């Protein structure tokens, strides 16, 4: 087991590594490859710089879709804002046919569910499947009983697929505002009951990877444009953390393994690893 500070030290060391699109993912035939980004929609310079790294890494690691963890559009949501905060920074990816699958954050107008490029299909929550992976897009801003009933039903029906849930508010984080314990009280029992493997969240503008909590891996990937520098804190529950720059995550699922690497705004790899799904973990 890594020491409390080991992950942070490694993260810092990796961040200082020479530039270059170093892909540590196996790129196996038939694997499910995707990008994870959170809290991206500022329209600011940093968003564009992070987007450039996504494009750069995408040349070596051709992912086919991107999951957005909410706060897709900050501030006003006029048509020109969607242009400046989404279609322009990700133009190269959109032109390549990369599908963006958004969750809603607390800064997002729920009417974003009608915006076709976000693929919510007019709904606040949805599920979709890629290969052997079933994704559950949850609206953690408003966990009404109808949504929970839907989640229960869909998880129960998801069979032996990988189960990945993603939504805006982190159930575990060391950031200043702390974990969303109320959301956790509602969602975690359902995740445990149905064997969710991995959860991705944003909201906190940092990167964190937790050791399995109740057998579930938790990632916070909320720094694709905004940053709260110094806002992660040492914890024995953490496997890795990074709060010195913006970041996003690349993931590949092949069989029972999920490979991932997290990349900073300057293109440095700040975390990487492989996770086994439930049932086949040592």
């Amino acid at each position, binding site marked *: 087991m890594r020491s409390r500070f080991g992950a942070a030290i490694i993260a810092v060391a990796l961040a200082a590594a020479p530039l270059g699109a170093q892909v540590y993912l196996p790129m196996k035939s038939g694997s499910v490859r995707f990008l994870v980004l959170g809290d991206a929609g500022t329209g600011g310079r940093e968003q564009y710089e992070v987007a450039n790294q996504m494009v750069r890494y995408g040349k070596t690691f051709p992912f086919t879709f991107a999951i957005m963890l909410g706060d897709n559009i900050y*501030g*006003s*949501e*006029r*048509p020109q*804002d*969607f242009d400046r905060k989404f279609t322009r920074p990700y133009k190269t990816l959109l032109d390549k046919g990369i599908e963006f699958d958004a969750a809603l954050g*607390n*800064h*997002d*107008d*729920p*009417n974003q*569910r*009608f*915006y*076709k*490029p976000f693929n*919510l*299909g*007019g*709904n606040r929550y949805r599920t979709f499947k890629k290969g052997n992976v079933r994704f559950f897009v949850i609206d*953690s*801003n*408003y*966990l*009404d*009983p*109808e949504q929970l009933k839907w989640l229960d039903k869909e998880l129960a029906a998801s069979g032996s697929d990988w189960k990945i849930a993603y939504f805006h*508010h982190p159930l575990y984080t060391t950031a*200043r*505002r*702390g*974990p*969303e*314990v*109320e*959301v956790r*009280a*509602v*969602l975690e029992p359902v995740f445990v009951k149905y064997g969710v493997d991995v959860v991705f969240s944003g909201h906190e503008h940092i990167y964190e990877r937790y050791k399995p909590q109740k057998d579930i891996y938790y990632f916070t990937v909320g720094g694709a444009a905004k940053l709260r520098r110094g806002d992660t804190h040492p914890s024995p529950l953490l496997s890795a953390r990074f709060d010195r720059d913006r970041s996003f995550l690349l993931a590949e699922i092949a069989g029972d393994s999920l490979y991932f690497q997290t990349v900073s705004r300057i293109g440095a790899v700040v975390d990487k690893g492989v996770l086994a799904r439930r049932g086949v973990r040592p």
Partner: protein
Amino acid sequence: MRSTLDFRRPLLIGGACAVLAAGGCKNEEAKPAENPTGAVFADFAKRVDAYMKLRKTLVDSVGELDPTKSQAEITTRATKLASSIIAARAQAKPGDIFTPEFSALVATLIKQEYSRRPDSVQETREDQQDELPDFVPKVNTLYPTTYPLATFPATLLPLLPPLPEQLEYRVVQNYLVLRDIEANVILDVMPNAVPS
């Protein structure tokens, strides 16, 4: 997705019974019609239904919205719907939907729910308010788009009467707000609903 109101939800009735523990609702099998809480919620449902009927006529005139690549289309339609709603409800005032009886009952439910939560949850709620708007919500106005929407306390929702999918509750400071989601119009406000 939600489409109808269902007032038979056990949690809700359980919560309401707790509120009335000192007085009525001693018999769990009591018919809603004989239960003052049931009557208050039934009245709320009628008021929501009345709004939904009005809304339907307005939606018919501006059209339903389907997913589109054009944000301009979404914005235009939302603006038109909002204008129609605001004009049609020009006389709307606080308490039209959140009646005093309903407000008293719901404020008690919320207070009880808050008092049951540990400090850590309370602190989270306060932190959420950090990002929140420093504005006083007003009936029949737009929710200011310069502010984020407050995340609704997840454990509180099951205690409140369900709403059609076009509507939602929000907490803004210590107000409970009823909001038309697609139009972004504040339909009613309940001051002092949430403990400071």
